[in-house]
Protein backbone atom coordinates (compact mmCIF):
# COMPACT_ATOMS: atom_id res chain seq x y z
CA UNK A 1 0.00 0.00 0.00
CA UNK A 2 1.27 3.45 -0.91
CA UNK A 3 2.16 5.80 1.94
CA UNK A 4 -0.42 8.64 1.88
CA UNK A 5 2.27 11.04 3.15
CA UNK A 6 4.14 10.68 -0.15
CA UNK A 7 1.40 12.74 -1.76
CA UNK A 8 0.56 16.28 -0.68
CA UNK A 9 -3.16 15.67 -0.96
CA UNK A 10 -2.81 12.32 0.79
CA UNK A 11 -1.21 14.26 3.64
CA UNK A 12 -4.03 16.83 3.73
CA UNK A 13 -6.71 14.11 3.67
CA UNK A 14 -4.87 12.22 6.45
CA UNK A 15 -4.88 15.44 8.51
CA UNK A 16 -8.61 15.92 7.94
CA UNK A 17 -9.42 12.32 8.92
CA UNK A 18 -7.27 12.62 12.06
CA UNK A 19 -9.05 15.87 12.96
CA UNK A 20 -12.43 14.17 12.61
CA UNK A 21 -11.37 11.18 14.74
CA UNK A 22 -9.89 13.32 17.53
CA UNK A 23 -12.88 15.69 17.45
CA UNK A 24 -15.29 12.81 17.97
CA UNK A 25 -13.21 11.35 20.81
CA UNK A 26 -13.09 14.69 22.65
CA UNK A 27 -16.73 15.46 21.93
CA UNK A 28 -17.67 12.06 23.40
CA UNK A 29 -15.35 12.57 26.40
CA UNK A 30 -16.95 15.96 27.12
CA UNK A 31 -20.40 14.33 27.10
Amino acid at each position, binding site marked *: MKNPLDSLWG*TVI*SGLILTLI*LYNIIKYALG
Partner: protein
Amino acid sequence: MDFIQLGLGRWLHILAGVMWIGLLYYFNFVQVDALKAAAADNTGAGITKHVAPRALFYFRWAALVTWLAGAMLLGSHFHEAFLFLKPAYYPIGVGAWLGTIMLFNVWVLIWPNQKKILGMVSATDAEKAVARRTAFLASRTNTALSMPMLFFMTASGGVFRTVVFG
Protein backbone atom coordinates in the same frame (compact mmCIF):
# COMPACT_ATOMS: atom_id res chain seq x y z
CA MET B 1 1.29 39.64 35.49
CA ASP B 2 -1.79 38.33 33.61
CA PHE B 3 -1.08 40.90 30.91
CA ILE B 4 2.37 39.41 30.32
CA GLN B 5 1.35 35.76 30.64
CA LEU B 6 -2.03 35.77 28.90
CA GLY B 7 -1.86 38.93 26.78
CA LEU B 8 1.69 39.13 25.47
CA GLY B 9 2.09 35.35 25.82
CA ARG B 10 -0.86 34.66 23.53
CA TRP B 11 0.37 37.24 21.02
CA LEU B 12 3.88 35.71 20.99
CA HIS B 13 2.41 32.19 20.74
CA ILE B 14 0.42 33.17 17.66
CA LEU B 15 3.24 35.22 16.05
CA ALA B 16 5.77 32.42 16.41
CA GLY B 17 3.15 29.80 15.50
CA VAL B 18 2.29 31.57 12.24
CA MET B 19 6.00 31.68 11.35
CA TRP B 20 6.48 27.99 12.26
CA ILE B 21 3.45 26.58 10.48
CA GLY B 22 3.82 29.08 7.61
CA LEU B 23 7.33 27.80 6.93
CA LEU B 24 6.15 24.19 7.37
CA TYR B 25 3.54 24.80 4.66
CA TYR B 26 6.15 26.55 2.50
CA PHE B 27 8.35 23.42 2.69
CA ASN B 28 5.48 21.03 1.96
CA PHE B 29 3.33 22.98 -0.48
CA VAL B 30 6.12 24.84 -2.34
CA GLN B 31 9.71 23.73 -1.81
CA VAL B 32 9.35 19.93 -2.20
CA ASP B 33 7.81 20.24 -5.67
CA ALA B 34 10.08 23.18 -6.56
CA LEU B 35 13.19 21.09 -5.83
CA LYS B 36 11.78 18.20 -7.87
CA ALA B 37 11.26 20.54 -10.84
CA ALA B 38 14.66 22.18 -10.28
CA ALA B 39 16.40 18.78 -10.30
CA ALA B 40 15.24 18.32 -13.87
CA ASP B 41 17.20 21.35 -15.13
CA ASN B 42 19.87 21.61 -12.41
CA THR B 43 18.61 24.91 -10.96
CA GLY B 44 18.01 23.76 -7.38
CA ALA B 45 21.38 24.85 -5.95
CA GLY B 46 20.14 28.35 -5.12
CA ILE B 47 17.25 26.94 -3.09
CA THR B 48 19.35 24.48 -1.12
CA LYS B 49 22.22 26.91 -0.60
CA HIS B 50 20.45 30.21 0.08
CA VAL B 51 16.76 29.60 0.84
CA ALA B 52 16.50 26.32 2.75
CA PRO B 53 19.08 27.10 5.50
CA ARG B 54 17.44 30.47 6.24
CA ALA B 55 13.95 28.98 6.20
CA LEU B 56 15.09 26.16 8.51
CA PHE B 57 16.65 28.63 10.94
CA TYR B 58 13.39 30.55 11.47
CA PHE B 59 11.38 27.30 11.27
CA ARG B 60 13.10 25.49 14.15
CA TRP B 61 13.45 28.50 16.45
CA ALA B 62 9.87 29.61 15.80
CA ALA B 63 8.79 26.06 16.74
CA LEU B 64 10.59 26.31 20.07
CA VAL B 65 9.29 29.82 20.84
CA THR B 66 5.74 28.70 19.97
CA TRP B 67 5.95 25.78 22.38
CA LEU B 68 7.52 27.83 25.19
CA ALA B 69 4.93 30.60 24.80
CA GLY B 70 2.19 27.94 24.81
CA ALA B 71 3.60 26.44 27.99
CA MET B 72 3.68 29.91 29.53
CA LEU B 73 0.03 30.44 28.53
CA LEU B 74 -1.00 27.19 30.22
CA GLY B 75 0.98 28.22 33.29
CA SER B 76 -0.26 26.45 36.42
CA HIS B 77 -2.75 24.48 34.26
CA PHE B 78 0.07 22.89 32.24
CA HIS B 79 -0.26 19.45 33.87
CA GLU B 80 -4.07 19.57 33.79
CA ALA B 81 -3.92 20.00 30.02
CA PHE B 82 -1.20 17.45 29.31
CA LEU B 83 -2.62 14.83 31.68
CA PHE B 84 -6.27 15.51 30.73
CA LEU B 85 -7.20 16.07 34.36
CA LYS B 86 -10.13 18.45 33.75
CA PRO B 87 -12.67 18.35 30.90
CA ALA B 88 -12.23 22.10 30.38
CA TYR B 89 -8.65 21.37 29.29
CA TYR B 90 -9.37 18.37 27.02
CA PRO B 91 -9.37 20.33 23.74
CA ILE B 92 -6.23 22.35 24.54
CA GLY B 93 -4.64 19.15 25.89
CA VAL B 94 -5.00 17.51 22.48
CA GLY B 95 -3.62 20.63 20.78
CA ALA B 96 -0.72 20.80 23.23
CA TRP B 97 0.19 17.14 22.73
CA LEU B 98 0.06 17.47 18.94
CA GLY B 99 2.24 20.60 19.13
CA THR B 100 4.70 18.78 21.38
CA ILE B 101 4.97 15.83 18.99
CA MET B 102 5.53 18.31 16.16
CA LEU B 103 8.26 20.11 18.11
CA PHE B 104 9.95 16.75 18.70
CA ASN B 105 9.79 16.02 14.97
CA VAL B 106 11.36 19.41 14.16
CA TRP B 107 14.32 19.16 16.51
CA VAL B 108 14.93 15.39 16.58
CA LEU B 109 13.96 14.21 13.09
CA ILE B 110 13.88 17.15 10.66
CA TRP B 111 16.74 19.44 11.67
CA PRO B 112 19.51 16.83 12.28
CA ASN B 113 18.65 15.14 8.97
CA GLN B 114 18.42 18.43 7.07
CA LYS B 115 21.95 19.24 8.25
CA LYS B 116 23.13 16.08 6.47
CA ILE B 117 21.08 16.82 3.35
CA LEU B 118 22.35 20.40 3.08
CA GLY B 119 25.97 19.41 3.72
CA MET B 120 26.25 21.19 7.09
CA VAL B 121 27.56 17.93 8.57
CA SER B 122 29.40 15.24 6.65
CA ALA B 123 27.38 12.26 5.41
CA THR B 124 27.75 9.58 2.77
CA ASP B 125 25.33 9.45 -0.17
CA ALA B 126 23.58 6.48 1.45
CA GLU B 127 23.22 8.39 4.74
CA LYS B 128 21.90 11.41 2.84
CA ALA B 129 19.28 9.26 1.13
CA VAL B 130 18.06 7.92 4.48
CA ALA B 131 18.16 11.43 5.96
CA ARG B 132 16.14 12.80 3.03
CA ARG B 133 13.40 10.20 3.48
CA THR B 134 13.27 10.59 7.28
CA ALA B 135 13.12 14.39 7.14
CA PHE B 136 10.51 14.27 4.38
CA LEU B 137 8.20 11.90 6.28
CA ALA B 138 8.61 13.84 9.54
CA SER B 139 7.76 17.06 7.70
CA ARG B 140 4.72 15.47 6.04
CA THR B 141 3.64 14.03 9.41
CA ASN B 142 3.82 17.51 10.89
CA THR B 143 1.73 18.90 8.02
CA ALA B 144 -0.95 16.29 8.71
CA LEU B 145 -0.75 16.86 12.50
CA SER B 146 -0.95 20.64 12.05
CA MET B 147 -4.56 20.30 10.91
CA PRO B 148 -6.02 18.78 14.12
CA MET B 149 -3.49 20.81 16.16
CA LEU B 150 -4.82 24.11 14.77
CA PHE B 151 -8.40 22.87 15.08
CA PHE B 152 -8.00 22.14 18.79
CA MET B 153 -6.00 25.31 19.43
CA THR B 154 -8.77 27.45 17.97
CA ALA B 155 -11.55 25.28 19.45
CA SER B 156 -10.19 25.72 22.96
CA GLY B 157 -11.58 29.13 23.71
CA GLY B 158 -14.08 31.86 22.94
CA VAL B 159 -17.07 31.55 20.68
CA PHE B 160 -15.55 28.73 18.63
CA ARG B 161 -15.33 26.54 21.72
CA THR B 162 -19.04 26.98 22.42
CA VAL B 163 -19.98 26.34 18.80
CA VAL B 164 -17.80 23.25 18.43
CA PHE B 165 -18.07 21.54 21.81
CA GLY B 166 -21.19 23.14 23.29
